[in-house]
């Protein structure tokens, strides 16, 4: 137990520098990780999907997928994992940190871009760097999937209209032969230019060591 303690201490240090979490936060997350993975070393998709509270969430699949997406690990890899370890878990979680008051402007911008990339990756499931109409439609359908029997057409209509909007805003003067392939990351960023992503997209991570977390 002693050896693994020091081992994990080193790992924690590493993670702290990589992700910016504090030691307490990482410990809490590790505890949670062990809970979810039933004390295994790795977490699988089923572990996450079995979380009770997630059952009502319409975009559950996308959220779970995001954890297994290699793109979110910042290592320029593509594809997805079958199972993830604790480092990958924390890496994904780190996208949801709030900005600290001490951050500089560049750091804030970088964080914002990071978060937007995360969102973008969630929508762009085939990894081609843009969100096509089909993918967007899927997004809207998922979003509406929990609410009664929505006609497929409604979801498609919404997605189409949204796509149209993006296209019109970003490419105002398309010639007769151009076509709009999909939302690229730049256009995606444009959508959020008025939103303060860095503060909106965050979850409070516990600082204190509580061992009374429900599962």
């Amino acid at each position, binding site marked *: 137990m002693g050896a693994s303690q020091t081992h994990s201490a080193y790992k924690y240090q590493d993670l702290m520098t990589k992700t910016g979490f504090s030691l307490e936060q990482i410990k809490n997350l590790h505890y949670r990780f062990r809970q979810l993975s039933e004390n295994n070393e790795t977490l699988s998709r089923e572990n996450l999907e079995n979380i009770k509270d997630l059952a009502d969430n319409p975009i559950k699949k996308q*959220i779970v997928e995001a954890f297994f997406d290699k793109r979110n690990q910042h290592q320029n890899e593509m594809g997805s994992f079958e199972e993830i370890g604790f480092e990958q878990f924390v890496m994904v979680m780190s996208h949801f940190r709030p*900005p600290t008051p001490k951050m500089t402007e560049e750091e804030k911008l970088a964080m914002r871009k990071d978060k937007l990339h995360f969102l973008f990756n969630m929508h762009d499931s085939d990894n081609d760097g843009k969100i096509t109409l089909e993918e967007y439609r899927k*997004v809207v359908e998922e979003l509406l999937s929990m609410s009664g029997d929505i006609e497929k057409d409604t979801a498609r209509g919404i997605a*189409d209209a949204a796509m149209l*909007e993006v296209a019109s805003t970003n490419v105002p003067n398309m010639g007769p032969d151009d076509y709009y392939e999909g939302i690229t990351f730049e256009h995606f960023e444009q959508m*959020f230019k008025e939103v303060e992503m860095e503060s909106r*997209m965050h979850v409070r991570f516990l600082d204190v060591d509580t061992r009374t977390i429900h599962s």
Partner: protein
Amino acid sequence: MRNFPTLYRDAVSGNNETWGSPARATQGDPHHQNSSTTHRKAFPVLSFNYDHVKTPFEISLWILLALLMKLGFHIIPRVSSIVLESCLLIVVGLLIGGIIKAIKQTAPVLDSKLFFLYLLPPIILDAGYFLPIRPFTENMGTILVFAVVGTLWNAAFIGGMMYGVCQIEGAQLGHVDLLSCLLFGAIISAVDPVAVLAVFEEIHINELLYILVFGESLLNDAVTVVLYHLFEEFSHAGIVTVGDAFLGVVCFFVVSLGGVMVGTIYGILGAFTSRFTSHTRVIEPLFVFLYSYMAYLSAEVFHLSGIMSLIACGVTMRPYVEANISHKSYTTIKYFLKMWSSVSETLIFIFLGVSTVAGPHAWNWTFVIFTVILCLVSRVLGVMGLTYIINKFRIVKLTKKDQFIVAYGGLRGAIAFSLGFLLTNNEMKNMFLTAIITVIFFTVFVQGMTIRPLVELLAVKKKEESKTSINEEIHTQFLDHLLTGIEDICGHYGHHHWKDKYDAYVKRWLIVGERSTEPQLISFYNKMEMKQAMMLVESGSAAKLPTLMSAATLQNIQQKGVPSRRAIPSISKSREEEIRKILRANLQKTRQKLYSYRRHDLVMDPFEDNVSEIRFRRQRAEMEKRMSHYLTVPANRQETPSVRKVCFEPENKVYTYDDSESPRGRAAQPSPRLPDAISLLSKSPQRPNQTSALRAKGSTELRAKAPDEQEEQDQVKLSRCFSDPGPNEEEEEDGSFLS
């Protein structure tokens, strides 16, 4: 106007009594047959009885006058751009007051009861109901600090300094004691929502500043109420002990939180009631108004803060009521609130002017001048000091410009006047009133009129264009669900988790039937479609869909019970399909989240009875259609849907596209003809933007190229975003277009 001699009445009624005996037959109502007289009165063909209708007549006359003034200002174009409407109204009031004084009648004064019970609530309800919630809650901390601490500071500073001023020898103010000064400070220190609304509306400032100043003016009511009652009680007693001060603090919490609680209770009652109104749509708006008014009055009974109660009621009620009520009721509520608040505001300013002329004044140079100066100074100091502290906690800091606008926008108004009027009559009251009026005039005239050029000069950020778009909706909701999911994975119940649970349970209670499961996006979309449907109806697309329209007027929709997802229930499925396709084909960007707290913008809402607009568009559409029909090659499958961005006004972007062709038309689908609702551009690919849009700021065109692989509907990797087949050119004879 008031006392007409009975003789006159006689003459008119054709009474043939001699002048010599006026006492007998002319007493009282001329309709009475006076059988004791020997003369028989002729039947009065025309009689005059003014007393009977005196009060309502005068009230109506006043209101009519006020509105005619308002009308007049907007007709004279140059005046309204230079001078603020409120200033003009005060001037008019002054004139009227002068006239009334000249003819030696008693003028109606801005009676406090009239003001607080009848004139103020509509304005506050209007403001509260349409309060933009998100910026309000995001800046809640700042607003509270300004409202509470700022007002306290103002009151203390002004009261204290005025006491010091009163001690100056030559000013003959020695009789003013400290408590009276503090009372005066409390009255004059509060920023007034009516004045702020009146001024800020015309300068179109950015949302943050607007919400800061306006929110402050609303929330400082609690402070004002407490301070006012505190000092008033104790100015009789003469001294204030520490215990009393402590009680005052407790009282503050009671007043503010109590007010909010009362408002919330009434709000929930209102929301709950609106759940059952589906069969009696006509009285829906009344519920909103009455519950809110009751909330205000109930709070006033207990001396709680009526304004906060009203705001809380409106804010609580709104999301649920809007989910439950019909579209027409929603429009009615909106318009009635705007109407009443407009009338109230106008009346308030006019009465202010009249009262100025009428009221007994006691002018004291020193007092008045120092009051004005101290108000300004204390406001500036307060804002600067507080901002310094607040900025340490804010992510988005307030710049110097922002601070200046916040300080400069701290206008005083009729509330201060009415509170002053409520003071018990003593020799100081008149002096206070004079000073209050001077400050009000100063802030409204000088500050109000100069704030606009100053805003321009300082290049303060203006209100942005309303950008609520489908994308925003989608991503906002997506983000919400994402954050909830992450919280659930993390295992601790954060703010999103609770919000979700709250939404799930509470909404089930307060929102009718299946609409409670309707996600926000759908209801948003449905509202858009509804508006679309209304536009279709109004512009009379009867040509193509006669049976549809006759069966599907909105009346029918209301009366035939709650349909699922607000589809039109009486129509068969295929028709429903058609409608959906039609509607979708003519999506317009909605101004769902209207900046409805703007009073004047309402008129420009393009979805509401803009019939001439529609007619114009219809004609253009016809013209375009005809032109395109001649110029395009029907078999050319490269018909392109085109998109046009038409701006009716800066705040409003209306996207339209008309779906023309797509090879799917080839497939033998019962594809409906898509009405070309607002198509302003032809469908031919050869012609670029030919039409100058109505008031277009710019136009966009999106040409779709239908690639060859588009075969089937569902696997279409549409390069464009249009899912619907367009009308086939050759079939298009009789015009499916919105004509």
